[in-house]
């Protein structure tokens, strides 16, 4: 370690020793390593700003610095993972940076199995994606800027996963949100991309508001922002949480839903494909969407407590199950290859969420682990294809097997891992989820869990089906595009091969009764995780699921393979002159064969329309009218303002004031805050009216104050 | 455009005597481009059809190496003149404009004047602006001075003359009013030349 870094570490240690609430809880020999783990979030953050300022003058225009930062994280994450597996590290460090009332504001880092898993994933997958991005982004107008935001994105995620308290978690959460906004809107010359970025940001913000509320309720009731404190007090029954426990749990879950794109909040993720493909790859594999899963896993001790959150788990299961099936169905009708993969991600996230909901902590995280590899791989493969054919649409592809053998084979590995072919990664993790669900269903026969079992098996079928469709339409048959396809450069292929190795073998790390590496890994936490342990793979379920998967693959191949008339060429793969009208016919033919389902699926269950027509327009109009009315009637008659308007203005003041905790917050405050956040989203119009209203409120309050 | 140094170095102080005379060269060019060559006092003129004006110039530029656009102007051939001395004979074609454009080479002394004849009542010709950016101002000048219309010139507005000026000063029919009022004082001032007293009859 260079001297400067060592010096900084000494400063950190000094702060630990002299800080007000510096704590050092560590186990095993890994403690020394953990003490320096603050470098993991800090290095990418610092590098992001360095790139912003000096990137253009640095070698490789910022890419070098970004990759070095991620390389550092990857190496450190790997070292930590190894140390964790050997000794088990559970450590938490906090440095007090200030107090608000009795609440300590702290900056810290938690190093345990869960966060190490995320460090490892973000580092390794991120490194590979960054390497890949060098070639992919070549020639981009804002190359350096891209790497600055991309590093910030990874750094934000690391801040999030290293957080030992809600404040830092929310900081990281927002960093991820902001940088994802930048990255999705990277090609902002196109209005659609700006809309996509706005949509992602707005959708997330709505969910974030819920997260704030939940976090505040939970922290206030427990008297601390610190997760460990909160859990300790909850387990000891020292909180004032009571009936609000359900609401807090639900609100936090809604926050997780937003980031993890669960069912009603899923709308932003497919649109987020507007960003560059490396962003999609990292976002789907390790960074943004896993934040929600991570959040639930981090708060797993809380969700395990039935007295607070029994029914939240049921909601989690139902949401997860709905997500995994409905999004899988949507993936079937997409022509854009990245959107197929996006819906696939949402569907797989549904698996993870549902698994956490039924209490299968390890299974959910195991799937997160394997999914990171194969989804990153699939996205990089898709990126490689897009790079070659200059189009996102599968109707412009076909027959690429010949032109891009390396991409083809790695993609195939990813597909096998995703659909769950023995012995690829997805097979083991998905099987574990289904096993856990089945176990819970038999022991605790609740409707929701049975629902999930059925849906998850159906989901496996659908996954197989649409992946078969993707592979056949992309790699088989005749090439339909205009550009000249070619294999991608080595710098793109190498990460794909590396990920393919991971996707093929990651599943072997946690064979029940045999290896169970990941189980040991993720259950290394300060709080006990209660879950069922399987002594061996559930052969019975394998016997059911594997044929279902194969059936899905078979049907998919028959329907969309080169010999089928649904294949875009429709000519069994022989060379044809593929002109644009013909391609259009081909697309129509594909869609024609699913008459009932197709319109529903094509319109994404009409959810976007619902939001637009049901939520945005009806509220926007009246609110605009209302503000107009207030402008015309109330502002002009300030002296006559009643107490009601004053309260309304006070709410606005409270919202504008800030979301910081000043002891004034109680549940009502939080509720008005949430309303305010919603309203602020919905009518950001004339600032001057707000000012007028605020000050009118101030005048009235002050007058009242003086009088009484 | 590649300009090798060799060309410059090749310009030695003593130009080698051209193996081809100016007449032969001009006739060759005229033959190849489809025109009619006249060489007078070391100056080659090639008369071309005004319909083929643009294409001929383009070929001269591209094929004959005459890529340097030197200038372009008009000439008013008139019998009736307000100023100066008139023409006795206008080559059979009575009254006409000529548009003359000089192209030369930047590697040697090859140069030719391309001439197109225009009738006075239809003084329109293709613009050379697509070939030479520098032709714009020259054509505007000819437009000012003669009223010749250049098809395709993007900016055919007055260059020298004020916007409201009426008339075309270089036409032979345009009077030089100042000098009508007051004759040029130097008209009689003819300088004595050496040898006047020796050979008084030399001028005849």
């Amino acid at each position: 370690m260079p001297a400067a870094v060592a010096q900084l570490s000494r400063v950190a240690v000094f702060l630990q020793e002299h800080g007000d609430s510096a704590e050092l809880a560590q186990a095993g020999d890994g403690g020394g390593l953990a003490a320096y783990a603050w470098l993991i979030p800090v290095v990418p953050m610092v590098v992001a700003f360095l790139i912003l300022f000096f990137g253009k003058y640095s070698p490789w225009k910022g890419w070098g610095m970004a990759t070095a930062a991620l390389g550092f994280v990857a190496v450190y994450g790997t070292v930590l993972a190894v140390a964790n597996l050997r000794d088990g590290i559970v450590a938490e460090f906090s440095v007090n940076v200030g107090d608000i009332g009795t609440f300590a504001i702290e900056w810290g880092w938690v190093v345990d199995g869960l966060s190490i898993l995320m460090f490892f994933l973000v580092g390794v997958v991120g490194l590979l994606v960054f390497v890949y991005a060098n070639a992919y982004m070549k020639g981009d107008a804002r190359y350096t800027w891209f790497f600055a935001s991309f590093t910030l994105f990874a750094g934000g995620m690391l801040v999030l996963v290293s957080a030992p308290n809600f404040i830092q978690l929310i900081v990281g959460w927002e960093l991820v949100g902001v940088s994802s906004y930048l990255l999705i809107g990277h090609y902002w010359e196109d209005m659609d991309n700006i809309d996509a970025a706005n949509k992602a940001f707005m959708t997330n913000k709505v969910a974030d508001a819920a997260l704030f509320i939940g976090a505040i309720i939970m922290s206030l009731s427990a008297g601390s922002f610190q997760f460990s404190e909160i859990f300790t007090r909850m387990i000891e029954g020292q909180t004032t949480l009571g009936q609000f426990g359900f609401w807090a749990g639900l609100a936090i879950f809604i926050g997780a839903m937003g980031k993890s794109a669960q069912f009603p909040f899923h709308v932003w993720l497919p649109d987020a494909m507007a960003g560059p493909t490396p962003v999609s790859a990292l976002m789907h594999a390790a960074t943004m969407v896993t934040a929600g899963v991570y959040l639930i896993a981090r708060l797993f001790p809380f969700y395990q407590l039935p007295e607070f959150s029994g029914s939240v788990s049921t909601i989690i299961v139902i949401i997860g199950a709905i997500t995994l099936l409905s999004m899988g169905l949507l993936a079937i009708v997409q022509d854009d290859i990245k959107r197929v993969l996006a819906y696939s991600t949402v569907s797989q996230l549904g698996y993870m969420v549902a698994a956490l909901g039924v209490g299968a902590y390890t299974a959910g995280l195991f799937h997160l682990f394997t999914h990171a590899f194969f989804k990153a791989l699939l996205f990089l493969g898709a990126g490689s294809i897009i790079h070659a054919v200059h189009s996102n649409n599968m109707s412009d592809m076909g027959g690429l097997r010949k032109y891009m053998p390396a991409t083809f084979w790695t993609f195939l590995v990813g597909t096998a891992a995703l659909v769950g072919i023995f012995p690829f990664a997805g097979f083991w993790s998905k099987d574990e989820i289904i096993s856990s669900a089945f176990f819970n269903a038999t022991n605790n026969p609740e409707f929701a869990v049975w629902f999930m079992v059925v849906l998850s098996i159906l989901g496996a079928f659908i996954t197989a089906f649409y992946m078969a469709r993707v592979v056949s339409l992309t790699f088989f048959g005749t090439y339909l595009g205009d550009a000249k396809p070619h294999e991608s450069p080595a710098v793109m292929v190498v990460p794909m091969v590396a990920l393919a190795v991971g996707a093929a073998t990651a599943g072997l790390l946690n064979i029940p009764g045999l290896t169970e590496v990941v189980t040991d890994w993720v259950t290394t936490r300060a709080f006990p995780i209660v879950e069922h342990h399987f002594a061996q793979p559930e052969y019975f379920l394998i016997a059911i699921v594997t044929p279902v998967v194969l059936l899905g693959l078979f049907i998919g191949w028959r329907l969309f393979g080169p010999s089928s008339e649904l294949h875009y060429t429709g000519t069994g793969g022989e060379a044809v002159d593929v002109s644009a009208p013909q391609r259009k016919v081909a697309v129509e033919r594909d869609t024609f064969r699913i008459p009932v389902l197709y319109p529903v699926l094509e319109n994404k269950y009409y959810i976007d329309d619902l939001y637009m027509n049901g939520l945005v327009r009806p509220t926007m109009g009246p609110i605009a009218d209302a503000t107009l009315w207030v402008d015309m009637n109330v502002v002009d008659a300030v002296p006559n303002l009643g107490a009601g308007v004053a309260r309304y203005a006070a709410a606005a003041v409270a919202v504008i004031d800030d979301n910081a905790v000043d002891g004034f917050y109680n549940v009502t405050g939080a509720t008005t805050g949430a309303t305010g956040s919603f309203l602020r989203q919905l009518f950001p119009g004339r600032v001057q009216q707000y000012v007028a209203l605020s000050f009118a409120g101030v005048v009235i309050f002050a007058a009242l104050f003086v009088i009484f | 455009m590649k300009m090798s140094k060799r060309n410059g170095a090749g310009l030695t102080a003593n130009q080698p005597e051209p193996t081809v005379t100016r007449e032969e060269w001009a006739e060759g060019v005229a033959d190849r481009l489809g025109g009619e060559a006249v060489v007078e006092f070391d100056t080659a003129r090639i008369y071309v059809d005004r319909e083929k004006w643009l294409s001929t110039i383009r070929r001269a530029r591209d094929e004959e190496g005459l890529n340097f656009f030197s200038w372009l102007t008009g000439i008013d051939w008139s019998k009736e003149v307000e100023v100066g001395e008139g023409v006795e004979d206008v080559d059979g074609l009575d009254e006409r404009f000529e548009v003359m454009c000089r192209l030369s080479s930047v590697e040697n002394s090859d140069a030719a004047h391309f001439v197109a004849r225009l009738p006075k009542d239809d003084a329109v010709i293709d613009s050379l602006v697509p070939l030479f950016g520098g032709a714009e101002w020259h054509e505007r000048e000819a437009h000012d001075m003669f009223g010749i219309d250049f098809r395709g010139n993007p900016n055919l507005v007055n260059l020298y003359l004020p916007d409201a000026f009426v008339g075309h000063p270089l036409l032979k029919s345009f009077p030089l009013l100042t000098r009508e009022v007051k004759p040029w004082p130097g008209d009689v001032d003819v300088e004595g030349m050496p040898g006047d007293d020796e050979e008084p009859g030399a001028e005849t």
Partner: protein
Amino acid sequence: MTDRDIAMRHRSEVAVSVELETPGMTLNIGPQHPSTHGVLRLIANVDGERIISVQPVIGYMHRGYEKLSEVRTYVQITTLVNRIDWVAGFASEVPYIVAVERLMGVEPPERAQWIRLILSELARIASHLVFMSSYPLELGAITPLFHALRDRERVLELIEGVTGGRFHPNFNRVGGVKPAAGAGKQQRGVSQDIPAGWFAQTQSTMERIFGMCDDLDTLVVGNELFKARTVGVGIIPADRAIEYGLSGPNLRASGVPYDLRKVEPHLPYPEVEFNVISAESGDCHDRYVVRLNEIREAAKIVLQAVDKIPSGPLVAKVPRLIKVPKGQTYVRGENPKGEFGYYIISEGGQKPYRMKIRSTSFSNLSILPWILEGQLIPDLVAVMGSLDFVLGDVDR
């Protein structure tokens, strides 16, 4: 990357950046403005300091020489033509007089040709020295002005010593040059036409010029700030230069070593040794350096000519009344600013039927709209100054 690429890239960047900017403002530069050398007016559409487009307006001092020459005798026209490019008045006389001589079939005596050569080169030095002084001044450097103008004074004295005029010598005659005052038939053929001691003075002045050139080399050419203002600014690629009919130092700075003194000499240039100065990149700095080195070459030519000038008569035998036979000819010469020529159409008689004046600055200036597009206003001054034009030469 070639110069042309650089220039093109520069222009494409401009096109990109202008779209995002505030709407443009019209800036009238001239007709009275310190950097327009007279009455040139530029209507510039600027965006901040960036020029979006520029439209030169000329003609404020158009004197109608082509028309005037139709009513003047051939002898009188000499008076007019040395007022076209007034900083090098003598040099603009020569092609005209040679054209007339060619039409008349008169061969001037050798001594007259050599005198013409010497005075042409002195005019070249004088003209370039104006540029040497005014161009740094436009960029804000004051001192070179005094250095260059001080020695230009010496050169003008030389011209005055022979011709009696500093700016407008009116020294050429059909068939030779003007004989010395009072030279009657007795002294014809004797070399008292040039004042005594003039050659020695010329030699010492040329030495001064060399020294001053070295001064300018260090003071201006090697000056880092001067380089910062001129290197890579206003690049004219060779093909553009040819297309717009640029000539003289402007053309040679763009990498086309084309010099009419080598190609088409009508004075005894083949008998003196000199180099054609050219540069590669065609930016403002090159145009300055080319002119500076041309001063040195011109001074060398003058020194050689002073040694080689033969004695003999100054004027050939010509009729008392100049009448030119019918015919057309074009004679061009390497004026300090470039190709300067006269196309004379004679229908017989004392006056030309039509005389076309090919003035250098007119063509040199016509590239302005192209080259100024996308430049900054300070670069406008740098580029415009580097083209070294004279408004009399533009407007005629």
